[in-house]
């Protein structure tokens, strides 16, 4: 008997169930099909305007810096402003994200833009989140050529663009958005839910930023 068979069989013996129990199977199929949401906190159920305000408040609470611009065309200027403010070289790493690519980067003539995954020598990366969660100030980033995963973790500074229309109130709704995008049961290689810059409390319980991931997270809300 393979380990797999042994384990599954022991589970069934322990639970005193038979392998061909249709009723049990239907419980499982129902839950997987209906994906019930459960208990959603009130602070995740606000209307659009209030949602944006909660998102910002929760993000800032965990040391994320947040700015708000009108359209995606304002993003290059917002990025350049951040670099200047932090005294960073005018260099960014970015993926193949079409929305970001369509912004007027040429307006920032001195800005050097490197495309693709990060090899670890980028100070700043710019990503486009596919969603966000207002109740916790969280960004939802999906892997792929548009926004490679390494951009979320290797650079010192991570700038994330998110349309306010894509900020969902609660975790479950944001995950439903992911499900809609990729199709039921499908996921990209990685979905990163990011809430603030990297930190550790492992030395005398003192919270310090910049453990292994970015030291700083900057969000540009659009619209």
């Amino acid at each position: 008997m393979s380990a797999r068979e042994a384990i599954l069989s022991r589970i069934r013996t322990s639970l005193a169930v038979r392998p061909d129990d249709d009723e049990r199977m239907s419980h499982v199929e129902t839950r997987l099909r209906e994906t019930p949401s459960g208990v959603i906190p009130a602070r995740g159920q606000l209307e659009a305007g209030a949602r944006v305000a909660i998102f910002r408040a929760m993000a800032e609470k965990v040391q994320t810096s947040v700015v708000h611009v009108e359209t995606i065309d304002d993003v290059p200027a917002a990025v350049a402003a951040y670099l200047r403010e932090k005294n960073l070289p005018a260099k960014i790493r970015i993926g193949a994200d079409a929305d970001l690519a369509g912004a007027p980067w040429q307006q920032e003539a001195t800005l050097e833009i490197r495309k693709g995954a990060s090899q670890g020598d980028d100070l700043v990366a710019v990503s486009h989140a596919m969603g966000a969660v207002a109740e916790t100030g969280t960004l939802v980033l999906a892997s792929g050529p548009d926004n490679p995963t390494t951009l979320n973790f290797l650079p010192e500074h991570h700038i994330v663009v998110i349309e306010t229309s894509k900020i969902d109130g609660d975790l479950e709704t944001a995950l439903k958005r992911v499900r809609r995008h990729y199709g039921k049961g499908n996921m990209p290689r990685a979905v990163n839910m990011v809430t603030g810059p990297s930190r550790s409390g492992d030395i005398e319980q003192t919270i310090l930023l910049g453990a292994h991931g970015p030291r700083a997270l900057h969000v540009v809300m659009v619209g």
Partner: protein
Amino acid sequence: MQLTSNEFKRNATNALSDSQLQKALRNVESGFIGKRQSAVEALPEFDALRDSARAIKNHTLEHLDLYIEAYEKKVREAGGHVHFAETADDACQIILDICRQHSARTVTKGKSMITEEIGLNEFLEKNAIEPVETDLGEYIIQLRKERPSHIIAPAVHLNKEQVESDFRRTHTHLDAERNLAEPVSLLSEAREVLRKRYFEADIGITGANFLVAETGSSVIVTNEGNGDLTQTLGKVHVVVASIEKLVPTLEDTAQILRVLGRSATGQDMTVYTTFSTGPKRPDDPDGPDAYHVILLDNGRTAMLGTEYQDMLRCIRCGACMNHCPVYHSVGGHAYGSVYPGPMGAVLTPSLSGIEQSGHLPNASTFCGRCESVCPMRIPLPKMMRHWREREFERHLTPNTARYGLALWAFLASHPKLYRAAVSLAMPLLAWLGGTKHSMDHLPLAGGWTKYRTMPAPQGRTFVQAWARQNRAGQKTGTGR
């Protein structure tokens, strides 16, 4: 898993006189408890979420075989591999095989209690493969060749001077004159040292906080981002998880996530919550080429269908030990097990046998604080009591305790004998107590009188006084 729980008493003695450890443990009391409290108070739905989380896990456990099958199918559809391991040794061997397949020399590790449980690091080292812990706390204790003393804050027993000394001892390539007085400089140094290791690693090994059946995803939660660098930069991502980590859907994951962070560190969300599904896709510019999940039993199936099944709801948040007066006194290492504190007291005997770990469920006052903060509403004291019942049945209880309690129980079930015995003993003790109304020494009560005086009885027992009063014909019961 090397167990030294039978030395609990000696370990506890050492821990109590270790002033450095006692100072570090005060951080546990003052830090974790307040943060959790604030987070819970800020979320009115917290208790309802605990109920929801419990219901989700109970449902999953009742259908665990089916959810495992559903999960496995999705992992394979996404291009991942699923391996089943009955024992810790089996899991280690499977991981070694994967390492050999890829000629791995170095593996990076995200923080993973399950790999501690199976003794993975020692096993890999014996087989000439270097495991590099990347979680800062795990990295520090790896340098010290110690075991974690807390399931989410592995280095909570250390102070910064100790960390500085370990870094100086190990990072010999760095300038000996450098200033490491502040924690932030220690963090920066670890970041720099480990950054290189991520790129050097052939394989990245993580655990999983959740395995999602709906999508075939493994989920890790970290604050540092080390788990993500581990699993993204290695050529292969290996996930080790015990079978009770299954949850049905993405929404179910979210429900439990809400109580996990708040219970562990008082955070609404940890910084990084990552859902990984299979290896990189054809158009992914980064990510691992291969994805392997090892599903481990190691005693879980033996807990299903028993009075210990509730323990399988544990999400390893650490809230129980953060609130435990015994843990506060002696710290995690005293327990001599991979899993300390209240959850360790219940789980360790299941994994390693009650004969080897009897002290753990016995060293509890049953104050119930653990259960009151457990996000999954696990009845920890009740299960510790069940272990005591197993011990009693097998005559593992020390004889003095067994006979003493048997005598008490005998007297208690024979009221007349009881009355006769106490009517002699109590006035004697009252007399011994004298005008101080207490005794500094009392035969058979050395454990008590070493640290406290023994209060003397008032003399006659209540039942005697009551009976006398009623014989005297008084109906109201308050006179003397």
